Each structure stands twice: as C-alpha cells, then as structure tokens.
C-alpha cells in the first residue's frame, strides 16, 4: 500500500472516531437513548396511545424484554462475525500481495 493511501485511510478513520466520540464529551447531560424511542413517542403524539399489534418473536418466547446485557452480547456477536470476515479477507489479500512481490523480486 502506498504511503499516501496509508495516511489517507488513517486520517479517515481518525476523523470518523472523533465525530463519534465528541458528542459524548460535548453533551454531558444527554441520555443517548435510541432515536427509535423518540420515534415511538412521536407516534403516540400523532396517534394517541398506540399498542403495537405484534411483539418481537424472541420477546414472546422468553416472556419479556431481552436483558440489556444479553442484547449487547448479540450486538457484539454481530460485530464479531463482520470483523472476522473482513479481517480474514484483508489478511489473505495482504499476504498474497506480499508473496507475489517477493516472487517478482527473485
């Protein structure tokens, strides 16, 4: 990878992290709840008390809401699957490029 591109990728990632983290420090009192909940509140405002006509399958099965810790576990599993595949593919490509360069040098 060229140095120019390396720098570009690095600065893009740093910028992304900054945008994500700054609100945490800038808005100290905010709750950072989901905008989903804000959506349900707005539905209530427009439509009066709305009762969802279908409950999530898993919540019906376990008779209640998914515990927060378990929810974060499943979110982590989702991230893990994705990162695993991405890292595997990038690792393979990186090594392949390196080997083919070595072959050329010989």
């Amino acid at each position, binding site marked *: 990878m060229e140095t120019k591109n390396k720098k570009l990728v690095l600065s893009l990632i740093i910028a992304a992290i900054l945008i994500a983290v700054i609100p945490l420090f800038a808005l100290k009192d905010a709750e950072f709840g*989901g905008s*989903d909940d804000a*959506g349900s509140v707005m*539905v209530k405002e427009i439509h009066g008390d709305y009762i969802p006509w279908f409950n999530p399958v*898993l919540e019906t099965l376990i008779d209640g809401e998914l515990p927060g810790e378990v*929810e974060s576990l499943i979110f*982590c599993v989702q991230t893990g699957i994705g990162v695993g595949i991405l890292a595997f593919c990038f690792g393979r490509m990186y090594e392949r490029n390196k080997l083919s360069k070595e072959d050329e040098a010989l």
Partner: protein
Amino acid sequence: MTRKQKKLVAGISICSLMAGIYPAANAMHIMEGYLPVTFCIAWGVLCLPFLTAGFIKIRRTLAETPRTMTLLAMSGAFIFVISSLKIPSVTGSCSHMTGTGFGAILFGPCVVSVLGIIILVFQAVLLAHGGLTTLGANTFSMAVAGPFVTYGIYKLCQKCKINHGICVFLAASLGDLFTYCVTSVQLALAYPSETGGSAASTVKFLGIFAPTQIPLAIIEGLLTTAIIVCLESFAKSELNLIGYKKEA
C-alpha cells in the same frame, strides 16, 4: 516486548475501551408491530422484484467469476459491522449506520438488497431490533432505497469527473441519509397527522431522525472511502473481475 509491540497493545486497548463506551440503546428501524398490516404487506411486495433481481445477479456473478466471492462476503461483513455500531450523535440520542453503500458501489444496488435483508432478519429475530412484520418496510428503506441512491450518486459523480474518493464519500453518506428519510416517510404514511396529513407527519419524523443521522452519515462516508481505498491497493484483480473502474 519491543516498543512496536507495546504501541500495538496500547492501540488495541484504546480501541476496545472505545467499543465498550457505546451505550447499548435502541437505534433506528421501524419497530415491530408499529405498521398496519396493509403497509407491511405493501412494502414487502415492493421489495420482492429487487430481491429477485439481486439473487439472480449474485448467482450469475458467482458462477462466472467464483473469485469475487471474497468481495461479496466483505460487502456483507461490512454491513454487519457498521450496522451493529450504535453511535452517539449531536442531538443526544444514538443511532446506527447502514453500511450498504460499500456493496452498492461494488456490485450495484440489487445485490445489496439481498445482503441487507440477511442483516435485518438477524436483528429482527435475535435483537428485537426492527421486526419481522416491519421487515418489508425496513428492507425497502435500508436495502433498496438507500443503495439505489448511493449507486445513482456514485455514477453521477463519476460522470462529472469528481475526485474518486469524494465520489465514494458523497455516495455513501447521502445513501445513508436517504435511508432515514425513507423511514420517516414510511412512518408518516402510516401515521398521518390530524392537521396537515402525511406531509406534516413526515416533517415531524424527519425532525427526529435527520439531525441525529447527519453526523453518522458523514462517518459512514469516511469509513466507506477508507475500505475502498484499502481494497484498491490489495484487491486489484478481484475489482477488475467485477468490472469496477475508478473512472466512468
């Protein structure tokens, strides 16, 4: 440990800390049971042609060039990662990105529809996030409308000979933003406001979702550009196989 190793360990610790900070809150898809039955069916039917076209295209691409499997898997994996990260935004609430722009730029919008629905089913069944009844509507906003806008803007920017990195950035972030606009419209159609009807509702829902989503759309644009730049240096041969070109 050498100094390099120490730096690596420090870097990894910081990343893992940051990942731990994110509060686990609900983010944004239409909630289970929040759309009337007719709307659920209508949006679902509307998605079918795109899903079929995507399925056919995936089969054809894989049959002709099996090596592109890597890129296809990576597009799916990117959506998995990006849509699981809930990020605090300037409005004081959290939302997450879609990650569909990357696949749409590489393979075209229909293929992403198929990849997107896999993630939506995963989240609807395991996480009670989104829902099976609202799957059609969520698929339409996240896996059909968003990717099509991304693809359109990408091609348009290429025609205008804008710098390639900026093309990718604009396409991915506007596609992300459009996804949430479509969600607002979908909710508004189902819940027209008493005064002013659907249009007034749309404005209300947009008022909630858009300000939260704008910074996230920028992040999505940045990350998509980063991964595309990486691929351009490591996966030239695969990119050539799927007919990916930097210039129009």
